[in-house]
């Protein structure tokens, strides 16, 4: 089994870290994984995306041209990746910044207002983790324990507060898509 995910957004939205966590979680499950980033010229505010492949077989190319899932955190990414997702695939959209709707009917679109959700949690910077939680919830491809372990491997175990905040955000995203969300966001 091979799962190919593209995560894209503005630089600074944390899409790279999300992808690394996905890859690290895959490695912890003894899968083959690759993570391939791509940046625009800006240090902050530019566009950025990463390609994450998790597979039970050796991975030929780390480049994903037809993702099983695309997670788009802003409008340019929406426009760029909408068409690439395979039929039957998954399209997670940051609806805080993207109000546009997809014309495609052959895949599953899941809008998540991650900025609002994160702000509500009191930590605007964890919007990426909210989205990762949503991805986990919708796809079933990432479980909570592995996510926490991956966080510890990549971030180091020291910063408990940070880990806690991220896990809270992850849970919030997961709950949002699995219906358990009980915050105050309309729509």
């Amino acid at each position, binding site marked *: 089994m091979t799962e190919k995910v593209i995560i894209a957004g503005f630089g600074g939205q944390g899409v790279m870290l999300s992808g*690394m966590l996905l890859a690290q979680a895959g490695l912890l499950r003894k899968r083959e994984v690759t993570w391939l*980033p791509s*940046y625009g010229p800006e240090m902050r505010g530019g566009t950025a995306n990463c390609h994450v492949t998790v597979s039970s077989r050796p991975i030929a190319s780390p480049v994903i041209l037809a993702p099983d899932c695309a997670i788009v955190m802003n409008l340019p990414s929406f426009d760029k990746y909408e068409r690439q997702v395979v039929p039957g695939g998954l399209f997670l959209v940051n609806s805080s910044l993207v109000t546009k709707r997809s014309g495609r009917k052959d895949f599953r679109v899941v809008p998540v207002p991650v900025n609002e959700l994160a702000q509500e949690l009191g930590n605007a910077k964890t919007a990426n983790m909210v989205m990762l939680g949503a991805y986990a919830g919708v796809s079933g491809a990432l479980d909570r324990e592995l996510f926490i372990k991956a966080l510890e491997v990549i971030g180091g175990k020291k910063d408990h507060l940070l880990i806690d905040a991220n896990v809270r955000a992850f849970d919030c995203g997961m709950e949002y898509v699995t219906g358990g969300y009980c915050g105050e966001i309309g729509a």
Partner: protein
Amino acid sequence: MGKVLMKGNEAIGSAAIRAGCRYFFGYPITPQNEVPEYMSRHLPEVGGVFVQAESEIAAINMVYGAAGAGGRVMTSSSSPGIALKQEGISYLAGARLPCVIVNVMRGGPGLGGIQPAQSDYFQATRGGGNGDYRIIVEAPSTLQEAVDLMQESFDLADRYRIPVMLLCDGMIGQMMEPVELREADRRPPVEKPWATVGTGGKRKPNIITSLYLNPAELEELNLLLAAQYREITERETRVESIGLEGARVVVAAYGTTARIVREAVDLCTAKGIPVGLIRPITLWPYPYAEFDKIGKDCLGVLCVEMSMGQMLDDVKIAANGRWPVHFYGRTGGVVPDPRDIAREIEVIAGRRPV
């Protein structure tokens, strides 16, 4: 040691230190910045030295000094930065100094872009600098291979007193993949009786130079180098190939492109077209002889590169008129699509109209 998920550039840095590299001189440039950054943090831990030079030119000349002084030394850069090092590399080759140079290639020409490319093949294999010299050029296609080739690079450099280049496209530098790092090299350092370490008043001065104003002497140096290049060609050529025997089409590709080609090969195999793959690991010396293993069913050789066709020259030389040579390339940071490559293969195999 278990597998760890690492960024290519950091894996390269870590592997270098494990291979005994103790001196690093470099200058920032995307997409290889994590190499110097890693070295600046970790070389001091093993008593090594990291210097951020004022330029790529200064860096390669610091490498020259350190190599001449007997240090295990390396530098890294990316395409335009490597262009600036050409005079220095020529000097290193002329003075027969061992060192490792990493080029994490980006799109060109000029400032170009920062996305992955393979358009420095000529620069690496033909010597962008002046004179009749070669350097060993190794091209990994996975991070594990990059890590493994790093130790080999330092060893080859010392054995032959020659600069070795690790030629990576930007993907190798930027991607993360699980790698297994080897134990630190604990062999005693290679003896370098030619190095400038101070005479201690006990011997004649050692001299590191590439200057021979007498043409006969300079020719002698060139003949010595040529003899050594022949020896390296015989002993150190590395290549991986699959399915050459019954192949109707053989694809030649290196680095990450070879991985992409593998996907294309799978697509074709699924359609019943037998396709072979030649993946040079050393770009110089080039594995020309590997092409002799291609079976008699072959209809054509397809060279695939992230460039407008540079390795293509070597593929033509290797083919030597035995098969038509075709080319498919993307450039400027655009990564080829396996489906497009598969289509090219099908055309050559006669399965599709051109």
